[in-house]
C-alpha cells in the first residue's frame, strides 16, 4: 500500500518553524501550533505572543525551573526570552485585533478552499462550545496558517469545499501545513506546494474533499 510516512506532530512543527521569517510576531494556537515554540532555534529572533498577556516567550522550561506565574494560552509553562514583556488581556487582544501579529497558526477541524476555518465547535447544536481566543486571532492576525492532520482519525478529509462545522472566521487561511503536505489557499483553491516523499498526487487528492492543484515551490 502506501509507501509514504506522514510527518509526526513534532516534524510538522519543525517544518512550520523553518518558514517563519526572523522578526515576525507570531501567535501559536493550541495543539500542533504550540509545538512550534520548541522548534524555533534560539538564535532566530521570532517573537511569540500569547493571548494571556506575554510577548517574547520561549520554549518550555526544565521541570526544575518552572515558574508557576508564566504560562501560555494553552496553560502550559513557558519561559521568557530577553526583551519579553507582559500586559493585560485587553492590551493583548488589541495587538491581535489591531493587525499587529504577522502570523497566527491555528489548529482546525476543517478548512475550506476559500480559506474558511472551523476550529471551535463541532456542531451548531453544541450550545456550550469553548471559543476562547480563536475568533479574535482568526479575524485579527495579518496571516492565518493552519497546522493539522490531513484527515481525522477516522480518515475523513479536513480540507473541504465548504465547512460543515460552525466557522471561526471566513476567508482568512492562507496556508495549511498537514502531516502529508503544505498547501496554499489561492483564488479559492488548494494549491499543493510540497508533499511527503512517496505520496502520490492521486492519494493526496483522495484524502482531500476539494480539488487540489499542484504547483510545487519552496518558500523563501
Amino acid at each position, binding site marked *: 500500500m502506501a509507501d509514504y510516512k506522514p510527518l509526526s506532530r513534532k516534524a510538522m512543527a519543525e517544518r512550520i518553524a523553518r518558514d517563519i521569517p526572523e522578526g515576525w510576531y507570531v501567535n501559536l494556537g493550541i495543539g500542533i501550533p504550540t509545538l512550534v515554540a520548541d522548534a524555533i532555534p534560539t538564535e532566530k529572533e521570532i517573537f511569540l505572543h500569547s493571548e*494571556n*498577556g506575554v510577548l517574547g516567550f520561549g520554549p518550555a522550561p526544565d521541570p526544575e525551573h518552572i515558574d508557576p506565574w508564566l504560562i501560555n494560552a494553552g496553560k502550559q509553562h513557558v519561559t521568557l526570552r530577553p526583551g519579553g514583556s507582559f500586559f493585560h488581556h485587553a492590551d493583548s487582544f488589541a495587538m491581535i485585533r489591531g493587525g499587529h501579529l504577522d502570523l497566527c497558526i491555528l489548529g482546525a477541524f476543517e478548512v475550506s478552499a476559500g480559506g474558511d476555518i472551523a476550529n471551535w465547535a463541532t456542531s451548531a447544536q453544541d450550545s456550550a462550545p*469553548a471559543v476562547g481566543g480563536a475568533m*479574535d486571532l482568526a479575524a485579527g492576525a495579518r496571516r492565518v496558517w493552519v497546522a493539522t492532520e490531513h484527515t481525522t482519525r477516522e480518515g475523513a478529509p479536513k480540507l473541504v469545499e465548504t465547512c460543515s462545522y460552525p466557522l471561526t*472566521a471566513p476567508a482568512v487561511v492562507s496556508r495549511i501545513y498537514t502531516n502529508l503536505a503544505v498547501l496554499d489557499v489561492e483564488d479559492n483553491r488548494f494549491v499543493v506546494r510540497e508533499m511527503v516523499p512517496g505520496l502520490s498526487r492521486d492519494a493526496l487528492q483522495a484524502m482531500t474533499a476539494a480539488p487540489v492543484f499542484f504547483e510545487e515551490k519552496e518558500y523563501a
Partner: protein
Amino acid sequence: MINKQVGTTAEALSGIADGSVVMIGGFGSVGQPDALIEALIEQGARDLTVVANNAGAGRVGLAKLLDAGRVRRIICSYPRSSGSVVFEDLFRAGLLELEIVPQGTLAERIRAAGAGIAGFYTPTTVGTILAKGKETREFSGRLYVLEQALGADVALIQAWRTDRIGNCVYRETGRNFNAVMATAARTTIVQTCGMTEVGGLDPEAIVTPGIFVHRVVHIPDGEAAAPAHLKKEEV
C-alpha cells in the same frame, strides 16, 4: 489617612447582594483570586451572574461556587475544559445560563465598561454563528459587529503587590483579566500576595492605580498564593 486594606476576606466580601454581577479575574489558575472565591461561597450571595474566562475546573474555586447553586448565569469564553465537570453537569441539566463571548471581545467589553464606552464595533465573529442577532455594519469596506460594554457590581482580583491606597502590580501572566476587570466594577476587591508601603511601587510600573480599587485583603505569598495548578490537592 486612607486605608483600603481590610483584615479578613469576610470583611472584603461583605455586602455583596443576591443577583450581583461578579467578575472573577485570572486565566486558568494563574492570577485567580482563590481566597476571595472561597469567601464568596461563605458569604452566601445567590442568583449571581459570573463573568470569567473559564467556568471552573475540578470541585474547587469557581466550580465549587457553581456546585453550591449560587450562580444563575455565566459569561465566559472557554467554559469547557479538562475538568469542567461541575459546569457541564449544571449546564446539561438546564440549571445554568451561559453566554459565550470570544476572549478578545470579552476583554474589550469589560474594558469598555471601565472606560465609559457603551459599545464598539469589532471584526471578531463576523460571518459566524456568534454574530447572530447582532448589528453588523461596514466601516471602510470591512464588516464589524456591535458589542456592548460589560460591567459588574463586584470584581474579585488577584494582585502581586498592593499598597494601602490600592495601587497594584501583577506578576508575569497573572496580569491577564485582573487588570481589566479591576476597572469595570462598582466595587473592586483585591486579594494581594503582598502589601507594600505607599511609594513602594514604581510609579512607572503601577498597572492598576488605586482609583480602581476599593478593598484590599492580604493573602500572603507562599502556598496560598501559588497558582492552584501547582498545589498538591489538584495534581
